């Protein structure tokens, strides 16, 4: 069965301020979407809302995964249903090693919620998968001994997010500004990593306000978001037009 995420007429406010004002978007497993828009247009708000951050209030609309509404589910349950968010600003958890965190998360997403607990994979099995993913992302093995995001450079944080994506194998992943703050070499490595993970099994929404990551990753669909709504959708040519003409052009032509 192909997984699909449906966002329907989504209205969201934060601390009384309305940010998303009727947003519709469908993402299927196997597709790559690019969601572009100027700073402050509500991209991170959308990402956090999809994942179930308690600070974001849904005023209207619905979010469905495989036809089932996610609105009443906490973030951990959404994750176990196959949703993933790579954060724009991943937080630090001091004293928690990347490996111990990943081990717990790896086991957790294998518990599908209801009923009996599945037996977690053995440590050796976990370690084997982890080493494979580290290699795939050209990451050093010692990386996993560090504390989660503590003292990580911008590039390391983004790579750690992609490593988590690789380990947890969601069906739909939202990547919030995974390209920002990266120099060109780091960008290439991260983009390579995403390309290696993309495929039939994974639906991706790449959120970005530049198009530069799209030189490395070919999206099937491009959406432009302005002021809490998607104002235009198209193929990858839309990204190119945006690069030439800027967001002003879209705003004038909406």
């Amino acid at each position, binding site marked *: 069965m192909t997984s699909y995420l449906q966002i329907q007429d989504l209205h969201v406010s934060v601390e009384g301020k309305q940010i998303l004002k009727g947003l519709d978007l469908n993402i299927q497993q196997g597709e790559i979407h690019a969601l572009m828009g100027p700073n402050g247009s509500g991209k991170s708000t959308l990402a956090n809302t999809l994942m179930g951050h308690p600070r974001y209030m849904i005023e209207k609309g619905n979010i469905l995964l495989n036809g089932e509404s996610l609105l009443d589910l906490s973030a951990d349950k959404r994750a176990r249903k196959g949703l993933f968010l790579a954060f724009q600003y991943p*937080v630090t958890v001091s004293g928690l090693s990347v490996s111990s965190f990943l081990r717990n998360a790896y086991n957790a997403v294998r518990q599908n919620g209801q009923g009996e607990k599945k037996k977690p994979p053995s440590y050796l099995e976990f370690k084997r998968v982890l080493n494979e993913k580290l290699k795939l992302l050209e990451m050093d093995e010692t990386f996993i001994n560090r504390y989660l995001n503590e003292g990580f450079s911008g590039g390391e944080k983004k790579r750690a997010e992609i490593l988590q994506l690789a380990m947890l194998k969601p069906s739909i992943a939202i990547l919030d500004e995974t390209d920002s703050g990266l120099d060109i070499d780091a960008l290439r490595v991260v983009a390579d990593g995403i390309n290696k993970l993309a495929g039939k099994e994974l639906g991706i929404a790449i959120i970005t306000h530049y198009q530069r990551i799209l030189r490395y990753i070919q999206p099937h669909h491009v959406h432009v978001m302005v002021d809490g709504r998607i104002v235009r959708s198209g193929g990858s040519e839309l990204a190119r037009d945006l690069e030439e003409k800027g967001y002003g052009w879209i705003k004038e032509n909406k």
Partner: protein
Amino acid sequence: MAIREILSDDSSKYDFKDSTDTYVYRGKKGLSIEIVEEISRRKNEPEWLTKFRLQSYAHFLKRPMPNWGGNLSRVDFDEIYYYAKPSDKAEKTWEEVPENIRNTFDRLGIPEAEKKFLAGVGAQYESEVVYHSLAKDLEEKGVLFLDPDTALREHPDIFRKYFATIIPPEDNKFAALNSAVFSGGSFIYVPKGVKVEMPLQAYFRINAQNIGQFERTLIIADEGSEVHYIEGCTAPVYSSESLHSAVVELIAMKGAHLRYTTIQNWSKDVYNLVTKRAYAYENANVEWIDANIGSSLTMKYPSIYLLGRGAKAETISVAYAGRGQHQDAGAKMVHLAPDTTSRITSKSVSKDGGRTSYRGQLHVGKGASNVKSYVRCDALLLDEESKTDTYPYIEVGEDSATITHEATVGKIGEDQIFYLMSRGLTEVDAFNMIVMGFLEPFTKELPMVYAVEMNRLLQLEMEGAIG
């Protein structure tokens, strides 16, 4: 896994009681000259020690209750049994230990842990040590690991030479009390250059209601030697107070390395008022690794006197205070020699109205040049009701000292929880992982099995941390 029972993944595991009918002796409640004399007489002590006890008792009576630290108003010295002797002597095999007591330590997992990774074990039940063992090879190298009575009998010179030289009875009211009625504890001597590779462990168990436990520990690490001592303690739950008041004296001679680890998990009706102090001579290294999880009130400030050039001192502590608990803990570093360094790391977690206090003292004496000292206290408050405070006292008599003091108070952020939950972890797991991470600078110092089980224990304590 044996050590699981030491720390237990089920807190009710500590909460079982044995009958006191089989005790060899239990004195009357309350404290008097007669009781002090009776303890000394039953132990067949030499006259100097009887006198020492009586003088200590006199000092205890004179000395007012401390009016700082925690609330001591509910400590009733008349309601406590000062001496209870459960068996005839400290046995060398578990088979010889009376059956009900042996069962207790079995349930706590001690004999099993001993087989697996300890070089020696002392097990104290109420006032007396009921079991003592030491690996053969260490015995042959001249290592002594004994209860104080045996040490005094078999090695009177060395015992008397060091006993009460680090903490005299006049030090404080509870040191005086301990000096008057002390019974049980450990005596360790590690000869020059001997390295004790595996830890020596002492386990302290209070069984009956209103028992006072007053063990006395003296560890002498001779030049260039190394030893790691671990103590654990538990008691069943009663509705009235028990008192635990130990005195621990450590001596690390030139170049010795002495580590003392405590995992204190008394039930929540025990007053834990302990004096711990170490002397570190030239290039010696002393470490207190101290976890306070149980007790109603703990007042404990392990201190290290850096007496020789190049000595190093470290205290790493964790305090956890839940409902009705006050952990008033800290550390004291006294630099009296040049080129000495000290480091204090204090981590505390308060929950459900629990209170943690860090009380620390840093002293750099005149002539102690080039001292380096680093103090770091981090407190984590798990809810609005809970409290934490710090009382750092710093006296520096030398300009060349480099002193760093950092303190933080934190709460667990919504964004941290959300981040971990977005990876499939439940809210409780996310919460626990953040707290365990916070305590990691401590747990990483513990032998692996202890670290795992300490985390388990803390997770149990924190159950229901989320409203």
